[in-house]
Structure formats: structure tokens, C-alpha cells
């Protein structure tokens, strides 16, 4: 229970920090960096609900990122919706899509699940590319996304947009936190660790996985919406497999066993990207070498390493408790 309040407190603190950024007159580039990072951060964080918590390695998560982005962008461009309306519509659409795709995919395991999600993602990508009259094909949703005022909020203003994104982001992170610390979250861990055994405990593995798949897709969809607002457009490569790949790299660079690991990974990858882009035209070479050094040097995300240390220490304590108890018992038996 205490954990719950602590989490909420931390979320509020996080939001406050984010909101302080413009107050203290941080340059727009920093705000841009944060907004971009929040969009990708939601993608990575939501994907980690699948990969880290449930053991479902999806190669197709970007399809929901794109689904949210396109649904939102199209709704706004149609001029029939307010921003909140389009927001809800986009999430609804993403959830529906995730329900259908998930119902088919979650029946498979491991590498097969990965490839099936990849296949669906590529199908979706091909539809975006092919349905030119509706989606604009490879040119994307061009011409800008209109942002009419709602409730006195004007998202055409960068500061207000920043605040809006921050709130949406923190709410999503809080939702994810709620999910992973709830009994449902522990059910996910059971499935990740040993789904056969979970089934023998009466858990409806398929349904739980599906629910998790849909929740995570919706959060990714919010990420897509934030990105759409940022670039004022939606593009097919939001849903290309390289975007999914990037999200996976973010998770790995940060760590998949710590709640905020993927977010750290997002920051690392975005920083790496921005720095290499700024200082060299050989971005690929530099990024490749940095990844190799990180992977072969650390073998794990930095946060995972820390978490492991911490866990080892806790385990050593727990084992000491056991050994003491066992010694007592032995003494009792000998006596």
C-alpha cells in the first residue's frame, strides 16, 4: 500500500520536474529532445511490458505506434474531431487492432511470436504504403495536423504542447506502473517465467497475454500520437520494423528488468543519435561501434546491472536467514 503512494508521489514529482523545464526557460532544443524522447519512451516502455514482464518478444510493436499516429492524424485532418475526441478514437482504434492481431499472435511462443508480429507489422506497413488515397502512401500525412483549441488549450503553442505531452506521458507511465505492480503484473511475470506452470495454476494464459498485448499497444499508440503532434504529420516509417528494432535496442541499452530501464535506454539512444549526427557524417559507424562496446562490455543494460547487484545483496540476506534457521533446526535434531 505504501508502495502505491510512493509511486504516485514519484509520478507527481516527475511531472513537476518536466513542467519546470520550460518555466526555467530551457532552450527549445531541450524541450524538443524531451518531447521526442517521451514519444519514443512510451514506445519502449510499453514494449517492455511485453518483453521484460511477460516474455513476449514482439518485433512488431511499432505497428501500434503507427496506428495511434495515423488514426489521430487522420481524425484531426478530417476536421470532424476535437483533439480529445481524436485522442480517444485513436486509442480505441489501436486497441481494436491489437485485439485482433493479438488474438492470433499470442498463441505462439518465443521466436514464432516474434516473427508473426513482424509479419503483421509488415502487412500493416504495406497497407499504409498501398492505400495512398487514404494514408498518403510513402509521403505520409502531409500538410500538417490541425490543432484546434480545446478547453482553452492551444497545442499550436509549443509550451502548451510540451505540457500536454508531459501530462499524457506521466499518466501513461503511471498506468504502466500500476499494471506491473498489480496482481495482474505478477501474473505476467508468472507467464514469463513458466507459462506451463501458470496454466496449471488455473491462469488463462492466452487471455492474460492478450490483455497485456492490448494494454501495451494502447500505450504505444499514445506514443505515436505524441510524435504526430511533435512532427505535425504521420509517416509510414513510424510503423516500419526498424522502428520496432529501435525500441528493442532502447530496452536493451537501458535494461529490461527495471521499470524505468527502457526510458533510460531511450535517453541513451537518442543522445547517442543526436551526438553522432551532430559531430560526424559517419553516424552508422559510430553508433555501431558504441553499441558493440556497450553490449560486449556490459552484456546487460546498465540499470539491469545495478538491479542485479541489489538483488544479489537481498538474496544473500535472505539466504543468511535460511542458513541460521537451518542451523537451529539441525541443532534441534542433534539434541
Amino acid at each position, binding site marked *: 500500500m505504501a508502495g502505491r503512494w510512493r509511486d504516485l508521489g514519484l509520478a507527481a514529482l516527475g511531472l513537476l520536474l518536466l513542467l519546470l523545464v520550460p518555466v526555467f526557460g530551457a532552450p527549445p532544443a531541450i524541450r524538443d529532445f524531451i518531447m521526442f524522447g517521451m514519444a519514443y519512451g512510451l514506445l519502449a516502455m510499453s514494449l517492455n511490458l511485453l518483453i521484460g514482464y511477460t516474455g513476449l518478444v514482439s518485433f512488431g510493436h511499432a505497428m501500434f505506434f503507427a496506428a495511434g499516429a495515423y488514426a489521430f492524424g487522420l481524425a484531426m485532418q478530417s476536421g470532424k474531431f476535437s483533439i480529445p475526441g481524436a485522442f480517444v478514437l485513436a486509442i480505441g482504434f489501436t486497441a481494436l487492432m491489437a485485439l485482433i492481431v493479438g488474438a492470433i499472435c499470442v498463441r505462439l511462443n518465443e521466436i514464432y511470436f516474434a516473427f508473426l508480429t513482424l509479419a503483421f507489422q509488415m502487412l500493416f506497413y504495406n497497407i499504409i504504403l498501398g492505400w495512398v488515397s487514404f494514408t498518403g502512401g510513402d509521403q505520409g500525412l502531409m500538410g500538417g495536423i490541425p490543432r484546434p483549441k480545446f478547453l482553452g488549450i492551444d497545442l499550436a503553442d509549443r509550451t502548451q504542447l510540451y505540457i500536454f505531452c508531459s501530462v499524457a506521458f506521466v499518466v501513461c507511465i503511471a498506468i504502466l506502473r500500476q499494471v506491473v505492480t498489480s496482481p495482474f503484473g505478477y501474473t505476467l511475470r508468472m507467464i514469463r517465467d513458466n507459462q506451463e506452470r501458470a496454466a496449471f*495454476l488455473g491462469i488463462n494464459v492466452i487471455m492474460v497475454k492478450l490483455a497485456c498485448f492490448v494494454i501495451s499497444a494502447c500505450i504505444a499508440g499514445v506514443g505515436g500520437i505524441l510524435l504526430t503532434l511533435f512532427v505535425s504529420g504521420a509517416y509510414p516509417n513510424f510503423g516500419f520494423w526498424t522502428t520496432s528494432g529501435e525500441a528493442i535496442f532502447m530496452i536493451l541499452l537501458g535494461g529490461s528488468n527495471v521499470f524505468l530501464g527502457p526510458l533510460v535506454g531511450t535517453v541513451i539512444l537518442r543522445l547517442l543519435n543526436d551526438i553522432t549526427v551532430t559531430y560526424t557524417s559517419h553516424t552508422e559507424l559510430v553508433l555501431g561501434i558504441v553499441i558493440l562496446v556497450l553490449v560486449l562490455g556490459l552484456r546487460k543494460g546498465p540499470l539491469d546491472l545495478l538491479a542485479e547487484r541489489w538483488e544479489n545483496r537481498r*538474496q544473500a540476506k535472505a539466504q543468511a536467514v535460511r542458513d541460521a*534457521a537451518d542451523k537451529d533446526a539441525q541443532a534441534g535434531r542433534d539434541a
Partner: protein
Amino acid sequence: MLKLENLKKSFGGVAATRDVTLDFADGSLSAIIGPNGAGKTTLFNLITGRFPPDTGRILLAGENIAGLSQRRIVRLGIGRAFQVASLFPTLTVSEALAAAAQAHQRRETVLRSPFPLAATTKQGDEIMELLGLTRVAGILSRNLSHGDQKLLDIGLALALDPKVLLLDEPTAGMGPEERWRMIETVQRLWRARRMTLIFIEHDMDIVFKVAQTVRVLSYGSVLAEGTPDEVRTNAKVIEAYLGKSAHGTAGQGATA
């Protein structure tokens, strides 16, 4: 309580269960023995719905459960522990037990409230107490000693309050001393919960000492059944399973 009628199951060409009819009385404690590959584990798999029997019926309190999903069968009250302990490596003992218990909880609370729910914590604590696992409550399942892993496996099954509990070689891979401690725990459990308990075992000392009735499987069929004494002296059983030196202690080769 549990009745098996003419169960048959084959994998490809291999008939793992040829024709098994068995009856386990309510609240009984019985052992299943038989050579390696006799189909003992397969029988448990059939009962728990891991795969459906090709033909035959499985009656739980008179109701046929053959062909139902594992999940349904678990909910009807059959719990199971595995030959190789089947655990959740990254959960601690107390987490694992609470999580297992909550698999039974009402759904509405599942997303709203934080883990663990008070009721499941209580249930988990009871189980740890019963099995002597309280001392390892904070240890990750994967870091447990072998014996504690087997106990936790049983504990997970207990979290579902089963009416019938199936234990597949609960003492496998243990030394003599641990074996006896384990079997004492099992007996305590059986008395405390008044459930129907069936276990598979290769250690004849244990089988003949603990079980009320013994069923012998061989090549997928029932070779013999009866009290320990009846089985021990059964010529067919000696030939197929116990071997020449068998006088109830064959497994340990001890000369009594």
C-alpha cells in the same frame, strides 16, 4: 473421488497408456510405481488435462473431466507438483505463493489493487508454515536448494486448495535424510488437508511404508494393485520392477 476408466493414450506409434482403470478413494494416500517409461507421468498428464486421453473417462467426484482444459481441471480441484520442479525462477517464495493463490482471486481487484492482496498473503504464509518454507520466504525460486524447490512446487499446487493432489516423484534427486523429511511433510500435509493424495515414487522403502495402496504400472497398463504387502510379494512386480534383491528395500540395496 478420482476414477479412471479405460484410459488410452499413444504418442505417434508409442502407446504410453494402454488401458488403465483405477479408483482412488476419497482422502486416500496412494502410490504409483513402475519401471522407467511405464507411463506414470503420462497418467498424471492425462488426469491434469495436459493432453486429452485418446479414449476413456476420468471421473472426479462422478463428473467426467476428460478432455477439459488444464485450467478447468485445476479449478475443479486437481493440483499437481512435477517430477522436475516447475517454478517461477524470478519470483521469491512468498511472491510465488501469493501469486499462485491469487490465480484464484476475483477478477475485479486484479488491476486496481497492488500486489499482493491481503488474502493471498495470508494463504501464502499458511502454506509456507505448513511446508517449512517460511525460512526461505525472501529467496528467489531459482536460488532455492533442490529440496526447497520441490517443496515450493508442492506449495504452488496447495495454493489452489486442491481436493486431489498429484505428486510426481516428490523425493527425486534427494538424499536419504531429505527424502524422509520430505515424506514426513507430505504425510503431515495429507492429514492436515484431508485430501486425496497420489504420488509416484521409485524409493521402495518410502512407498511400502507410507502408502495405503500401491498401483504398479508397466508398459502403460496396470500390472498390479493392492496393499504394500500384496504388491511387494507379487511375482510379476518383482520380475518387472523390483528385481531379484527386492524385499521391500530394493531401491536402496540395503540388506535388512
